[in-house]
């Protein structure tokens, strides 16, 4: 009898333990390898301490691999991930497809109204917020103050393209391997085409008119590309057609670039004395314009979204709310200092007097605020997105167009030939897609 009771009690205990184990929810997070994301992984103990019933699993992948894996999984309803790290390009497309869970019901203390309007607009489709921004970025001019002074010039807070050209010419000293300007030349929709599309906006160029007709045969595109080629061939580093973000970052950190126009996130790298030889000589300015009403800067936000097929939606929402909250920002500041706080998402961060002391804080905010994803170009266009067109076909088309432009920079064809090919292939692809 005693044996039976013991057996029953034992079985009950095993069942209780099993039930407790079952109550544990696992949230699998697909993310990219960058400083802010890695920092978040290191601080998740704060979240798991508050939510002991949730276990976090991380899948960290290179940006392009992640994009492909996540697209494949969400389109086939594979259900491998509960939280996705995606950008402002994917959110409107996937939100419209019904692939993402609406985040309109995040708790009131998460304070959706505190999100910067430009960023929030880029992540909202038909009034539904489909992703919570983790960090936002724009692009801006990073320049060498010492070289600028040597050239007898002063960088305005909001320079024009003509001034950039003048400064690039004055700073270039090819014998000393100092190049006036470093810009992206590597082919890819997120590489040279991100820069050139944003630059084109400030020259009055656009991808499509209101009838979705490709516009590479316009004068504005010819002006954009000719100006870019002129800058890069005369004042750019050799082999620029293979330079992306990392290559230019490396050149700038070694003191070989007078100016670099790229993501605001680079500011924390180039001002870090551990890696940069010019850390104390870097100044910042808004991306250039041509006086036409638009600047050549982009807008991007790495954001956390929940796929519609997730079986841990509630736990995933708790995590997303935690990672993108004001409290998380305070946690990073406490542990790693204000310069390492994920930038560009919340108004309250820029109202914080301590954050205002970070050298690139104001310029990052001004750059983000000067980009408008819903009204990106001078003329009206049927699409949203500053450095991209938020349609599924864009990534493929822009990568091919980017290859043509990169080939022109490498001297393999003329600007006219590159634009002609871009016009033909974009028209063909868009017709095939039914536009």
């Amino acid at each position, binding site marked *: 009898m005693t044996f039976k009771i013991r057996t029953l009690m034992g079985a009950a205990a095993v069942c209780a333990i099993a039930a407790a184990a079952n109550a544990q929810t696992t949230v*699998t997070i*697909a993310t*990219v*390898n*960058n*400083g802010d994301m*890695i920092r978040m*992984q*290191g601080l998740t103990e704060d979240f798991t301490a508050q939510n002991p019933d949730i276990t976090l*699993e*991380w*899948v*960290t*992948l*290179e*940006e*392009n*691999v992640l994009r492909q*894996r996540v697209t*494949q*999984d969400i389109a*086939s*309803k*594979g*259900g*491998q*991930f509960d939280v996705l790290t995606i950008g402002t390009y994917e959110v409107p497309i996937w939100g419209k497809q019904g692939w993402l869970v609406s985040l309109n019901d995040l708790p009131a203390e998460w304070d959706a109204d505190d999100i910067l309007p430009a960023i929030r607009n880029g992540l909202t489709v038909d009034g539904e917020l489909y992703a919570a921004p983790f960090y936002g970025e724009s692009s801006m001019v990073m320049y060498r103050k010492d070289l600028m002074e040597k050239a007898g010039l002063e960088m305005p807070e909001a320079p024009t393209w003509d001034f950039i050209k003048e400064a690039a010419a004055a700073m270039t000293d090819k014998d000393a391997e100092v190049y006036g300007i470093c810009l992206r030349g590597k082919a890819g929709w*997120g590489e040279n085409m991100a820069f050139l599309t944003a630059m084109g906006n400030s020259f009055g160029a656009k991808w499509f008119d209101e009838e979705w007709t490709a516009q590479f045969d316009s004068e504005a595109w010819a002006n954009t590309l000719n100006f870019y080629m002129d800058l890069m061939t005369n004042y750019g580093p050799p082999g620029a057609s293979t330079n*992306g*973000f*990392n290559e230019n*970052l*490396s050149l700038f*950190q*070694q003191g*070989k670039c007078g100016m670099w126009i790229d*993501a605001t*996130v*680079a500011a924390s*790298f180039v001002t870090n004395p*551990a*890696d940069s030889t010019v850390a104390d000589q870097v100044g910042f300015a808004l991306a250039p314009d041509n006086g036409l009403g638009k600047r050549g800067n982009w807008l991007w936000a790495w954001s956390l979204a929940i796929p519609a097929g997730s079986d841990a939606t509630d736990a995933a929402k708790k995590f997303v709310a935690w990672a993108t909250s004001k409290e998380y920002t305070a946690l990073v500041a406490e542990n790693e200092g204000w310069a390492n706080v994920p930038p560009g998402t919340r108004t309250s961060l820029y109202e914080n007097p301590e954050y205002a002391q970070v050298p690139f804080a104001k310029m990052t905010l001004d750059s983000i605020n000067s980009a408008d994803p819903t009204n990106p170009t001078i003329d009206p266009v049927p699409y949203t997105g500053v450095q991209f067109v938020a349609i599924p076909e864009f990534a493929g088309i822009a990568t091919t167009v980017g290859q043509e432009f990169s080939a022109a920079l490498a001297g393999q064809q003329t600007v006219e030939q590159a634009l002609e090919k871009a016009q033909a292939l974009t028209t063909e692809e868009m017709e095939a897609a039914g536009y």
Partner: protein
Amino acid sequence: MARNVTPQRKAINTVIAWAAGLLIFFPILWTILTSFKTEAQAISSPPVFLFFDWTLENYAVVQERSNYMRFLWNSVIIAGGSTVLGVLIAIPAAWSMAFVPSRRTKDILMWMLSTKMLPAVGVLYPIYLICIELGILDSRAALVVVLMLINLPIIVWMLYTYFKEIPGEILEAARMDGASLKAEILYVLTPMAVPGIASTMLLNFILAWNEAFWTLNLTAAKAAPLTAFIASYSSPEGLFYAKLSAASTMAIAPILILGWFSQKQLVRGLTFGAVK
């Protein structure tokens, strides 16, 4: 008759062989060296070769950030499992083609090889959807089967070549002594083909260990092997080359050590049957 080789000629040959070897090994050597540099040294121009302050910091960071042992264990299971399963299927297949050939044997061999000519991405979605249907996405079992199928044509071809070198008369003699088919394959054929089977297994293990397309596409958190471990340190926005190199060195170290210790076996197996 052996060719006369002068000492000078021998020295030149040695130098050429070492130069070719170093050239092939250089990217791996550079990766290993970079893993001991700081991030600033990793991108310095001109590059620093040997004279820098060696640091283990990158390894410490990688160890802290990732569960290396979990990735390693997944790699061992996936590469080992697919190799063993592949050989178990390929031995009888190669036996039948080598010793009981039909008119279509050559065609079958060519057809098997032709499956290697199809770009892997062409069958990504069908296989992905099958894995979803069977509920085996992000499982080691799925990768064991998929990698086995991917490498099976190579295993069959290699074993077929080795088996062809074994005189059929020996098997006939075994049969006349009353050996069953199972006994013939297990106790007569297999022991004679051990060098060939061993080198086939080694090569297949290396191929499966290095396979990146399927292992990245069919895994997430649970079954991710060392290829995913390397991919997690690649970054288009941020210079993390030293950490990436440390992760790569940790990922290739086990297979490099295995290759080093088994190189005699590998070379012997690969040249088996080359001299007729």
